C-alpha cells in the first residue's frame, strides 16, 4: 500500500501532536484545579482568553515567545476572576464557570471584531527546536522531536506534576484542599490560598494551550476557535482519576481522533468528519459503561470552603 508513505505518517503523527498539546495542557490544568477542590467549568473561557491574548501580543510585538507568555497571562486573568468569585466569595462553581466561558467567548469575539474584522492578519510560522539525535529517528523524529518549545514544555509537565502530587508537601496540601479542606486548615495551612494557587496555575496552563492553538496551530485568532477543547480537558481530567500520565494518554487518543479526520481525507477515504470526531467520545462512553464504577473525584470537589462551617 503506497498510502502509508513516510511523509504521510509524519504528517499524521505531527497532527496528533498539534491537536493533542492544547488538550494535554487543558487536562493537566483542570486536574490541578480539581485536585484542589475547584471544579473549573470556565476553562473553555480561559483557553479563549489565552488564545486571544497570545495572538494579539505575538502579532503586535512580532515575538512568538512574548505571545506564549501573554497567552498564559490571558488564561491567568480569567482564572483570577474564578478565584475571586468561587474561592474567595464561594459562589457556585458551575454557574460562574459557565458565566466566565460565555463572557470570554463574547469578549474575545467582540475585541477581535473591533480590531481585526477587516485585516485577519496571519502570524509567521513558529520556529522549532530540533533535538539533536532524537530528531533523526525516522518518522517519529520529525513529528515529535523537531517541534515548538511549548510541546516539550507540555510533555515535561507530565512527570513534573506526577512528582509534585506524589513527593512534595505542596502537592499533598493541594490534594488535601480538595479532599479534606477542614483538616488542612487545622494543620495550619491556608486552604483558600492553596486553592487560589491551583486555579491560577490551571488558568496559566490552559491559556498556554489556547495560545498554542492560535499562534502555532492556526496562525490566526478566530472567534470561538477553541471549539470545545476546554470541555474535552474537563473530560480528560475526570477520566484520568488524578494521574497526570493518564491525561497524556487521553490527550493522545483524543488528539488522534481530532486530527484523524483530516488525515483520512488526505488519504482519500470518504467518511464525514463527524464520524471520526465521534470516535473518542464513543470509546470513552463505552469504557465508562463497562468499568464506570467510582470516578474517584476529590470529596470536597465543587464545594466552597468556609472556615468553621460543618
Amino acid at each position, binding site marked *: 500500500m503506497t498510502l502509508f508513505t513516510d511523509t504521510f505518517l509524519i504528517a499524521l503523527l505531527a497532527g496528533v501532536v498539534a491537536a493533542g498539546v492544547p488538550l494535554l495542557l487543558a487536562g493537566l490544568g483542570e486536574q490541578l484545579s480539581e485536585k484542589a477542590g475547584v471544579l473549573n467549568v470556565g476553562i473553555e473561557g480561559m483557553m479563549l482568553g489565552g488564545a486571544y491574548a497570545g495572538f494579539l501580543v505575538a502579532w503586535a510585538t512580532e515575538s512568538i515567545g512574548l505571545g506564549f507568555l501573554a497567552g498564559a497571562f490571558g488564561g491567568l486573568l480569567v482564572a483570577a476572576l474564578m478565584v475571586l468569585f468561587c474561592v474567595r466569595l464561594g459562589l457556585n462553581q458551575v454557574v460562574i464557570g459557565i458565566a466566565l466561558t*460565555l463572557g470570554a467567548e463574547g*469578549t474575545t469575539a467582540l475585541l477581535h471584531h473591533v480590531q481585526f474584522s477587516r485585516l485577519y492578519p496571519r502570524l509567521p510560522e513558529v520556529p522549532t527546536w530540533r533535538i539533536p539525535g532524537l530528531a533523526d529517528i525516522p518518522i517519529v523524529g520529525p513529528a515529535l522531536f523537531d517541534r515548538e518549545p511549548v510541546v516539550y514544555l507540555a510533555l515535561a509537565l507530565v512527570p513534573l506534576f506526577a512528582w509534585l502530587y506524589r513527593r512534595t508537601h505542596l502537592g499533598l496540601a493541594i490534594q488535601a484542599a480538595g479532599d479534606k479542606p477542614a483538616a488542612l486548615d487545622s494543620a495550619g495551612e491556608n486552604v483558600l490560598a492553596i486553592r487560589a494557587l491551583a486555579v491560577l496555575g490551571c488558568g496559566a496552563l490552559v491559556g498556554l494551550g489556547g495560545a498554542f492553538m492560535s499562534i502555532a496551530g492556526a496562525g490566526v485568532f478566530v472567534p470561538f476557535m477553541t471549539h470545545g477543547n476546554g470541555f474535552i480537558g474537563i473530560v480528560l481530567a*475526570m477520566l484520568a482519576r488524578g494521574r497526570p500520565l493518564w491525561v497524556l494518554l487521553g490527550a493522545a487518543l483524543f488528539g488522534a481522533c481530532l486530527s484523524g479526520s483530516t488525515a483520512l481525507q488526505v488519504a482519500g477515504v470518504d467518511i464525514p468528519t463527524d464520524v471520526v470526531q465521534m470516535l473518542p467520545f464513543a470509546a470513552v462512553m463505552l469504557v465508562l459503561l463497562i468499568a464506570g464504577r467510582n470516578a474517584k473525584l476529590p470529596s470536597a470537589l465543587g464545594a466552597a470552603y468556609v472556615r468553621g462551617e460543618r
Partner: protein
Amino acid sequence: MDEIEKPRALAARRREILDLLVASLGPVLAAFVISGVILLLMQVNPVSYYGYVFGRGLFSPTGVQATLTRMGPLLLIAASLIVAFRAGIWNLGGDAQFLIGAVFSAAATPLMAPHLPAGLALVIGMAVSAGFGAIWGLIPAFLRAYQGVNEIITTLMMNFLGISLASVLVKLLFLDPATTVPQTRTLPVEDRLPSLFGTTISSGVLIGLAAVLLVHFVMTRTAFGLRLRVVGANPGAAIHAGLAVPGLTIAVFAISAGFAGLSGGVAILGQYGNVRADWNPAYAMSVVPLVFLARFNGFASIGFVALFSILSIGSESAARRMGVPNYFTLVTVAILLILLGLSEYRGARRRQRAGA
C-alpha cells in the same frame, strides 16, 4: 392561624416577594449599565443601541412575532433544566438531546403527514422528539444512578457525541433525495404547528409556557416534586428516608432529556420544517444561565427567557444595522450572571449576620 397573625404573615410574604424582585431586577439593571459602558468604549451610543434592540425585538410587529416564536423551544429547554437542577442533577447535554429530538422528528413527520390527519402527525412527531431526546439521556442516567459516575462529564460527552451524530444522520440517513444540500425532507407549512391568531407566531410558545408552568407546579406542589427536591438537596438523607434514589434519578433524566428533545421537535414542527446538516442553535447552553438567574423558579424563568429572546432577536438585526456583533448579548448575560452571584453572596452574608 390567629386572626391577628394573618396580616402580619401577609406583610412578611409581600416583603419576601419584594426582596426577590429587587434581588433579581437589581442585577439586570446593573448589567445593562455595565454593558452600556462597554458600548461607549466601542463608540456606540448605548441608548440608541438598546433603543434599537428593544424596538426590533419587542415593539415592531415582525420582531415581537419572531421573539414569541423563539420563546417556544427556549421555554421547553427551561422546563428541562428546572427539573434536573432542582433534583441536583447537572444535565449539561441539552443541546444534543435537542438535536437528536429535532432530527428524528424531522425525519418522521414529513413521511407521516400526507397519510394521517394533520393533528395526529404532529402529536406523533412531538412524541418521537421527546422519546429520542429521553433515550439520549439514558446512558448518563444509568451511569449516575447505578455506577455513581458524575453526570457533568457524561452529559458533556454525550453532547459532543450527539451533535456529531445528528449531523451524520442528516448527511447519510435522513437525506432529502430531492435536494442537493444536505438536509432532511421539509414539512410543508400547512402541516406545521398552527400559528396563533393569524400571525406568524408559532403555537410552540403555548406548549413551552404550559411545560414550564407544569414543571413549576409539579416541583413545588406535589409529593413527586418534593421527593425529587429531597434527592437534590441531600441524596444521603433521601436514602435514609427510604426514597428509591436510582429510580428517581432515572426519572429525572428521562423527563429532563425528554423536554429537551421535545424542544427540538417544536422548533422543527413549529418553525423550521427541516434540519440542515451542522445546524446547532445551542439553545441549551444559552438557557442554562437564564434558569440560574431565575433561581430555578418557573415564573422568573419565563421572564428571563422572554428578555433573552428580545435581546437575541433585536441584537441579530442590530448586528446588521449598527455594526455591533450579536455576541454582545453573550457579554451581557455573563455580566448578569456574575452580578447575580454577587447579589446572592450579599444576601447570604446579610442573612448570616441577622442570624448571628
